[in-house]
């Protein structure tokens, strides 16, 4: 039977190779990404320890979570870590990119490479390094402060309920500034210099030029950079886990949502509750990303 040219089945047959080429990806993707995320949604309404049949409990997991002070704390900590690390990393990266692009003519390539070095160390290993630098008795930070105090300064940074979050933020800044710096350098180079010349003739100062020329033209890159930082920042796990040696810190002062999810799922085997937690995390990322996208779009 002859098929009508242009009918869907005809076009599918003509493009058989398309389905073959995307098949390996789609099969793996559906099995290991799509299915788990959909299944997680349903698992969030059940009580299950991984053996036997999950028991349906409705929204009990969610009510339990929002009455759990540790969970509330983990949300607070995660937002704290995400917010400060994003603002500081992106701000620092922008200042750095602007200076290197406009004022530094020698060794540009060298600076681009050096600031990427931290990206090469695994976050878990970076966390070990920071915990050595800030350790109580042998830490270089305490030793340095000791130079200015009477006697030996031996502050317990890693046991401090206040400082544990800034330390996590510090690791993220150290690791990611170079990455965003590279993105911004590339973005700055696409802005034609005539625009800056025109601004100069109009008598605009540096702040005005950045606000009216640089930032609007960089908006798409800023969006990519904010979204990357958000999706990564809200899932933060390695840094708090290693820094607190898996405990979450004194009084859970350093626990992140990702870490609490790990504890619930893989230490207490409360799979239904952990799945519900993972969906709160998912929703939070979705919410923040949508707000970011809208905010950055409105500005341009």
């Amino acid at each position, binding site marked *: 039977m002859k098929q009508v040219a242009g009918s*869907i089945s005809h*076009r*599918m047959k003509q*493009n058989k*190779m398309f389905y073959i*080429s*995307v098949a*390996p*990806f*789609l099969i*793996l*993707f559906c099995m*290991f*990404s799509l*299915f788990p*995320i959909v299944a*997680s949604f349903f*698992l969030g309404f059940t009580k299950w320890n991984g053996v036997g049949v999950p028991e349906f409990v409705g929204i009990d997991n969610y009510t339990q979570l929002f009455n759990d002070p540790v969970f509330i704390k983990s949300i607070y900590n995660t937002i704290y870590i995400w917010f400060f690390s994003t603002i500081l990393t992106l701000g*620092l990266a922008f200042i*750095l990119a602007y200076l290197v692009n406009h*004022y*530094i003519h020698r060794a540009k390539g060298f*600076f*681009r*490479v*050096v600031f*990427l070095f931290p990206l*090469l160390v*695994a976050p*878990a*290993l970076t966390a*070990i*390094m920071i915990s*050595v630098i800030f*350790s109580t*008795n042998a830490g*270089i930070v305490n030793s340095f402060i*000791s130079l200015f105090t009477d006697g030996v300064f031996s502050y317990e940074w890693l046991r401090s309920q206040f400082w544990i979050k800034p330390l996590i933020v510090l690791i993220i800044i150290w690791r990611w*500034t170079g*990455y965003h710096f*590279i*993105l911004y350098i*590339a*973005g700055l180079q696409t802005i034609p210099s005539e625009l800056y010349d025109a601004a100069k003739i109009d008598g605009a100062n540096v702040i005005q030029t950045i606000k009216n020329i640089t930032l609007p033209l960089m908006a798409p890159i800023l969006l990519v*950079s904010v*979204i990357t930082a958000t999706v990564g920042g*809200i*899932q933060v*796990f390695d840094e708090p*886990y*290693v820094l607190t*040696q*898996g405990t979450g810190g004194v009084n859970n002062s350093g626990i992140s949502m990702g870490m609490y999810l*790990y504890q619930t*799922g893989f230490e207490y085997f409360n*799979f239904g509750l*952990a*799945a519900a937690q*993972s969906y709160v*995390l998912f929703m939070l990322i979705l919410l923040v990303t949508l707000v970011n996208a809208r905010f950055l779009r409105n500005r341009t």
Partner: protein
Amino acid sequence: MEKIASKYISYLFVIMLMSLFIFPLIWMFILSTNSKTDIYSFPPPLLPGAELLTNFENLLAQIPFFMNLWNSVYVATSNALLILFVCSFAAYGFARFTNAPGNRAIFLLVIASIMVPPLAGIIPWFMEMKWLGWIDTHWPLIIPTAAYPFGVFWMYQYIKQAVPDELYEACKIDGASDFRIYIQMVIPLIRPGLGALAILSFLNSWQNFQLPLIILNTTEKFTIPLALTNLTTQSGTDVAGIMLGTSISVLPIFIAFILASRHFIEGLTSGSVKS
């Protein structure tokens, strides 16, 4: 005058910041050459010591370091190779067969999933691994992550830019099959793009901590980040050993990075700058 002043202030600021950024790395190397007691003395050592070999012996006494290093090499390499094939093959399909029913819809799904956090599905994912009998094996670190949506997006952009549509027609007229076109024409043209993706996937896999932590139980099967962090929880933390292990594990990556930094930086930037 003002311009020169701002130039010098910029240099000063950038160099100061750079020193802060590389200090931890340098100190890591320094600590790995000092003895345990020197590290805990006051003030801590700021110059290289002579205990490199002793530290190395101590490290080897505590963990099967070479085994862990090998696990990381083999897991990260296989994962990266698999990503290169799966992602570039899919991207070839998306880029070339634009008329195929479903092309746009599936591509949108891929793009959207770049923003979906993997943690959201971690519990069912773990149960799948259990069901497949993959707990305490390296398979979960190699196979599932091969479907890397960013990799598809990245290769798609690269193919669109590096392979003009007319080339497909020319090959087709010469009688080449679609698969041969992919292997013999597309792959050579997108080699730089593949290189950047290879570095990125290798790094991701090499640095992964959470999945190995969930999946692996046997010390002999640990990858490097897991093996070294595990040392901190044991009694009497061996800081020198951990720093030495970390140094050894990042050294090859540093060398590779410095050699390939141009490709790497192009890879990082062109993906997001063009989108």
